[in-house]
């Protein structure tokens, strides 16, 4: 059977019909940055980190299907600058104080900041007022760090079949809501073993009593290798 291919940065990449550009790239060992994508969940397409040029047009690699003959640009100075701007926007939109965050070193947002050479937040911080929900015995939500990727929403709905989370509010008021009579996590059906707890790419959903003991500085996921080395799903933080 003749192999179907498209190109990424001028290299031929094989794909199977139905695969997205992101999936095909991953299978070929090429990193395309992403934040709201997770291999077990239906694509979302909102964070825009995976934006690539497909025949010159910006497209999200996590939703766009690979097609024979497509010319895809991934690693270009323009796209990388755009990704840095996206990360900066996500930083200023919430309240991210990395040194005090348990997820530091294992956080995909922070790792993307390093990857795209973000030295400053660049934009004026919006400093939203958001509360912490510590009502659950085993799990904590730090809304200040939520990047609205909706991974927990999708995992709870499609894997855990509980629909514990939702997104409410429009525009800058968009925020995570918890499905319980009080709106508190402690009164919801969430269990610490839920997939929804594990998929959060940042330090917004945190398992209690683990804290900084998970891994000392120097041993954390992204201390050892940058996020761009995560091309094999089984070795990445996503599978943990």
């Amino acid at each position, binding site marked *: 059977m003749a192999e179907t291919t498209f190109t990424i940065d001028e290299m031929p990449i094989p794909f199977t019909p139905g695969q997205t550009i992101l999936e095909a790239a991953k299978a070929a060992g090429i990193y395309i940055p992403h934040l709201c994508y997770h291999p077990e969940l239906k694509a979302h*397409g909102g964070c825009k980190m995976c934006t690539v040029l497909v025949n010159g047009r910006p497209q999200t690699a996590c939703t766009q299907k690979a097609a024979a003959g497509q010319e895809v640009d991934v690693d270009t100075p323009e796209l990388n600058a755009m990704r840095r701007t996206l990360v900066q*926007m*996500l930083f200023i939109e919430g309240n991210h104080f990395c040194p005090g965050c348990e997820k530091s070193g294992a956080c995909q947002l922070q790792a993307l900041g390093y990857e795209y050479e973000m030295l400053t937040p660049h934009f004026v911080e919006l400093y939203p007022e958001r509360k912490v929900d510590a009502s659950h015995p085993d799990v904590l939500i730090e809304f200040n760090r939520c990047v609205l990727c909706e991974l927990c929403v999708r995992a709870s709905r499609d894997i855990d079949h509980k629909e514990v989370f939702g997104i409410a509010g429009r*525009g800058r008021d968009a925020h995570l809501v918890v499905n319980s009579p009080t709106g508190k996590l402690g009164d919801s059906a969430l269990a610490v073993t839920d997939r929804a707890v594990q998929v959060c790419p940042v330090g917004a959903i945190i398992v209690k009593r683990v804290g900084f003991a998970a891994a000392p500085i120097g041993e954390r996921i992204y201390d050892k290798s940058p996020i761009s080395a995560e091309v094999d799903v089984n070795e990445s933080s996503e599978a943990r």
Partner: protein
Amino acid sequence: MPTADPVVSAIAEKYRNNPTYVLQILRETQEALDWISPETVETVAAQLKIPRTRVQSVLQFYSFLYDKPRGRYRILFADNITDRMAGNIALFEHMLSRLKLKRGEVSSDGQVSVDLTSDTGMCDQGPAMLVNNRAIPRLTMRRIDEICALVKERVPLEEWPADYFRVEDNIRRRETLLTSIAPGVALDAAIARGRQGMLDEIKRSNVRGRGGAGFPMGTKWEGARNAPGAERYIVCNADEGEPGTFKDRVLLNSFSVRVLEGMAIAGYATGATKGFIYLRGEYKHLQAKLQREIDEMRASGRLGASIRGAPGFDFDIEIHMGAGGYICGEGTAMVESLEGKPGRPRVRPPSMVQVGYRGKPTVVDNVESLAHATEIAVEGGAHFAKRGTRFSTGTKLLSISGDCERPGVYEYQFGVTIGRVLEDCGAKAISAVQIGGASGVLLTPDDFSRRIAFEDVPTAGAFMVFGPDRDIFEVARNFAQFFAHESCGFCTPCRVGTTVQRNIMEKIAEGRGSRYEINELKRVVAFMQRTSHCGLGETAGNAVRDALSKFRPAFERRLRAKDFEPAIDLERALEPARRITGRDDAEAHLETES
């Protein structure tokens, strides 16, 4: 106040407890209870058997639904730039002071709240307001005083003088579309051509969508017709949310035969049997009238089964009310909203003609586009294509407002020059025209020989005229506020970018901008344009970009003569410290620069 349960159950029963109708159910519940309390959310969720988070996500998405206590009178002043030019802010402040209220706050007796909202489709007769979604145009100080008196005396809205609510058509120029047509004529013509024949005529006419994008209507209809499956839908896009447009309001009010029969013709040609009119919440005043006409059509065999006796020509129409949200005018967001969800644009592909409303092939067409289908049915595509230009056939409605003598709706053949339009509407001295609304383009006299056509200046029809005394910076600032308010929040670049853009414009407006902000605006605009998920984010910076390139002095004038000005205003930042320490002496202030 009635308790939530019986009210909610009655409304939900009417919609057969179908969660697809949650937005309609919330709208009607609010009409009965004034706001949607957490208890009401619980009741609705239980009654519809859906998670409460889904009810919350809808409740908190739409501007006209309230999750905080509201009173009997929920007043919103339209705040488009044309309302500002007509003095809405003075009226707004007058009302606030008469009612002793702050913006957005509910009065101490729990009766009334007063706030601002985006454009309400009344730019030709502004300043305008909405009271519980009912439009009151042509506001004056006197009218505000009268309304304040009615509110204080707690006169029910239904008993307010009917004259307040009168909305004028203001038709100033007609060609072929703004002419009446006898009921049934277009339907009979379509039936005589047959389904394929009707589709062929639409294709032959080369008619392009009037909602903005200009997509060929025949291609869209054919795509839906050819998509697999038996169930198909027609959606009439009557969201008309683009600031500065109001021509669909006039079509719906006075040419509804064309609009409704146009929908049925679309059903006939594509095989769809069900149509929705997505009517913006601001046009609630048209709802009952349209419903009566739909009922009348059903009674007279122009809707329902075997329309006009044609076997298998089955079609019906349902009105779906919006609840405040510009983004719901975007086709895929509209379908999400119809499904009872927040109006967030979908990921494409698949296209709507393949996978639309409830996963079925769906055609979303603008009101005006559908109305043209009646012309094409009657006269044929070739005849239709004789009007206008080669690439933009037929006529176009323009909504004209701002600094001109005769604001209103004008019908022209495509290809008319901007200069001609300005002359006709009595715009004398002009410094700029915003064409296509907040997301459109700002043109100056150099461009006035250009033509309204998809191949030159494309537009859904908004035409806002600015005289020489208008401050174009304020125009751009108003639009920047609009986009920050209307971004749906789905994608990062627009959700954050529109706020960044607005904040920079505010900083410049406060006189604290510098060269740096100008360059930053340019970067943010280009970034949003390139990376946003939908047309809203892609165009959210157009107005700022155009104002910067064509009216740079309007920005320069406000800048501090510095390359950079910190975001933080030190003097202002000391305020909390002064408050806490109870000090206000000279030592507690920075030395003011002079």
